């Protein structure tokens, strides 16, 4: 169920005031500025999907804007397509290209994404400038005006209405793509890039989809601009367009479609206000931009959120998470090297269903490396891993998670912008399942609180809850008791025992022996990447090799 976001009313009031001002000014110039605002807002709403929601600085959005403009111009001028179907082409061509571009680019991170997409934008500009079929430096001119049912929408109010219908469409699409569980998953992919695959979230699928949607939206903006100007030239592919979109997204506030519209309404007319400065207007414009970024570090939407906070979604009633029980984890000959350092060397063990296995060892002995290898976050190295009868060592971490392998982290990545419920629902098959997981970890009463407000113990509980929400048969936990009070440890022990009794297999890495030894059915001790002891807690604790390597010798004076 969705909570009512009062910020929507604030934006609606701003839109109303804007249109009132427009009606008062009423001339073609004011209408043209408002039309331009709409065109850039459409492309910026799309950019928010990739930049804001995926956190990728994809500098190709301006190029997709231009590609949409060229697609429409060529379709209408060269192929005789009428403008309305031409707009569809302006959306589809960049969307398809966006998906194709995303296939390689989606594997990259941070500045590499920026570099790769910048290269694409430069390529598009070079092609447009030099290919005769694209009109060369002059571009394509004579684009017919938009007509619908014989009515000419070339300029003025009709064009304005057509463009702002496009804004509404882009907002609706953006809202659909980022609403509810999908939105929580996007935020998790952005803010918890390590945890997300271990929760079954496949970054590639989301990135390809969002790139395509963002590119299609940019194409719609570009197509409308081509119809508005009647000319498409390489100028539409220049980096200026991308800079404008980036500025709108930053000033609008990360990920906010409505913020992007408000920022476009603020930034697009700004150069016009400073025209009186003649050649000096760029300096004034740059100063105004700088002031906006300094004064609004989280953008317009962020500033508004401080005054009118976003309400957390109202969670559904509690349901159940059906676990896939009776599946054991088996590891054979697991190995991993980091240069000359052997982190894992032929490690083999089994975690049967219904059992808790503790993995101990000194720092650097290979415990976390083993968890990374098993969960698939590290896929380099040798050995076989089996989940029941399924060999998993060639599978992606998301695929392993979907087969029932869940993982908790030593330092949980919790997206700060989400509520407690949203953090868990991102990993759950349903809202009800998320609530069931929160109930098990004692966080159900805090479901609507911001995740950022939780203390360290509650954050660990939240990390465990979202792992449980995936319905795992095997659970890997990395130091779950670190930093907990005695009372919190007791509660955690009880929960882990219950989870095992229900038929799950638990592999727990822990340094705190007073927590782990009473809890685990069996203990495996690693030293320098090798298993040096395995057995019950008493057997392992008494093993001289373990005592030497990890627990320490008793000194008798």
């Amino acid at each position, binding site marked *: 169920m969705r909570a009512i976001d009062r910020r929507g009313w604030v934006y609606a009031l701003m839109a109303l005031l804007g249109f009132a001002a427009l009606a008062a000014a009423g001339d073609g110039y004011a209408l043209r500025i408002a039309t331009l605002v709409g065109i850039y807002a459409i492309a910026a709403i799309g950019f928010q999907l990739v930049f804001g929601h995926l956190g990728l600085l994809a500098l190709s959005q301006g190029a997709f804007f231009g590609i949409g403009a060229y697609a429409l111009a060529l379709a209408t001028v060269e192929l005789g397509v009428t403008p309305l179907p031409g707009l569809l082409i302006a959306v589809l061509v960049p969307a398809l290209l966006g998906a194709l571009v995303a296939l390689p680019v989606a594997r990259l991170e941070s500045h590499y994404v920026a570099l790769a997409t910048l290269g694409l934008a430069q390529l598009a500009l070079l092609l447009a400038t030099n290919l005769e079929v694209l009109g060369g430096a002059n571009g394509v001119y004579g684009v017919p005006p938009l007509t619908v049912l014989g009515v000419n929408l070339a300029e003025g109010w009709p064009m304005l209405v057509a463009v702002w219908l496009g804004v509404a469409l882009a907002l609706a699409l953006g809202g659909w793509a980022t609403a509810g569980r999908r939105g929580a998953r996007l935020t998790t992919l952005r803010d918890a890039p390590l945890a997300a695959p271990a929760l079954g979230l496949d970054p590639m699928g989301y990135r390809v989809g969002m790139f395509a949607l963002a590119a299609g939206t940019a194409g719609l903006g570009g197509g409308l601009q081509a119809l508005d100007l009647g000319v498409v*030239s390489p100028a539409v592919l220049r980096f200026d367009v991308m800079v404008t979109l980036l500025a709108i997204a930053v000033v609008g506030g990360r990920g906010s479609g409505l913020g992007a519209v408000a920022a476009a309404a603020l930034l697009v007319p700004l150069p016009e206000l400073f025209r009186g400065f*003649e*050649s000096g207007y760029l300096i004034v414009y740059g100063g105004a931009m700088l002031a906006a970024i300094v004064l609004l570090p989280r953008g317009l939407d962020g500033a508004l959120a401080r005054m009118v906070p976003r309400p957390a979604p109202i969670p559904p009633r509690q349901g159940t998470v059906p676990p896939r029980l009776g599946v054991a984890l088996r590891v054979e000959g697991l190995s991993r090297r980091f240069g000359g350092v052997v982190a894992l060397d032929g490690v083999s063990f089994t975690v049967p269903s219904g059992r808790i296995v503790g993995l101990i060892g000194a720092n650097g002995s290979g415990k976390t490396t083993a968890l990374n290898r098993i969960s698939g976050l590290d896929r380099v190295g040798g050995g076989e891993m089996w989940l029941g009868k399924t060999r998993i060592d060639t599978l992606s971490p998301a695929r392993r998670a979907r087969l029932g392998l869940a993982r908790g982290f030593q330092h949980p990545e919790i997206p700060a912008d989400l509520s407690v419920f949203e953090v868990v629902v991102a990993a759950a098959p349903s809202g009800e399942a998320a609530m069931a997981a929160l109930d098990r970890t004692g966080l159900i009463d805090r479901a609507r609180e911001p995740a950022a407000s939780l203390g360290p113990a509650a954050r660990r509980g939240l990390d465990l809850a979202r792992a449980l929400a995936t319905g795992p048969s095997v659970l890997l936990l990395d130091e779950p008791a670190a930093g907990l009070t005695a009372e919190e440890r007791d509660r955690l022990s009880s929960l882990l025992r219950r989870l095992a009794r229900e038929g799950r297999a638990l592999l727990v890495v822990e340094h705190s022996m007073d927590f782990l030894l009473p809890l685990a059915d069996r203990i495996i001790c690693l030293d320098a990447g090798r298993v040096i002891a395995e057995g019950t807690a008493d057997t392992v604790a008494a093993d001289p090799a373990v005592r030497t390597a990890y627990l320490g010798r008793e000194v008798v004076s």
Partner: protein
Amino acid sequence: MSRLFHTLVAALVVMVTAMAARAAEPVSIPVLVPITGFLALEGTAQRNGAVLALDTPPAGVSVTYEVSDTATSPEVAVTALRRALDRFDPVAIAAPIFGTQMLAMAPIANRAGVPLITVSGTAKITELGHDVVFRFFPTDAVVKVAQARYAVRELGVKRPAILYQTTAYGQSGHGHLVRTLAELGIAPVLEEAIDPGIKDLLPALERARAAGADGLLLQLHSGPTALAVRQAHGLGLGLPIVAGSAMHQPSTAALLDPAALKGVCAETASAPIADARPAVKAFAVAFEARFGTKPDAFALGQYDGVRMVLAAVAGGARTAGAVRDWLAANRYEGLAMSYVSDGTGNMAHDAIIVCYDGNSRVPRIVKRYDAVDGIR
């Protein structure tokens, strides 16, 4: 009868007063030119030429104007045009040198019936059937013919290399150069497109040498032209250079040592600083006094264009439509040349060749090509 007479006299007085008031009422001629971006140099020359003309209107004509930057995108130019049309009710507009902007502006100005006065060289702007575009600078069909003919017939170049910009200006000029050379029975040994952002032309110049070129034809913007001339001199290429109109600009020559300019020639519509005619000299002095820079052909072309509009206003054309018709139908003796429309808005039909002697940055007019396109 007497009462009727008095009424008629009173009506006549009112009409005459109203007409006088209308004649004194200022006309608006906005200046929309690129004063930022890669065409800032040319656009500023345009601006200054237009402003000098607008600041000194003929007797009885009062003018208001506002300068707006169109930068280098059609979108900004169209917005500036929309503003000018809606807010100033102009009789004419000094319009950008950038052809791509003109292509976007022309249909809108055509619907409004407002003349666009430009020095843009892009051929297409006068080929689309809009009767509001008036170009006061010879097209490539004029200046490129002059450039190619001078290189071949006067300098004896038989194996030219062409370096041209990857912009509308460069591509259009390149096409005309190749066509004219073919008519003269010459095939270029190298045709190389140069991006405006390229900062080193040595590889292109070396390729020209390797191709066995005996002359260099440049169709580059101001900065790249200066770079090509400087690097050709540094390389000791020793080839005659006939450059595009950018080379005649004082601001381009200012980027070079006079020695590097020895033997370098350029086509242009006019060369105000090299022209000995008293009226042109007076213009050059007034221009430098007002703006602190020397005028070039773009400034003079725009000056002449705006002066012709003002002449139309002084001649009774008080509306945009009347100015358009006046421009289309009349000949105007400007400072650079005699302007008359060829029926599509091309007003300039003459070209000149200027050359530098290696001692000064002021060139000498060495050849005039009048009525190259057959329009007199």
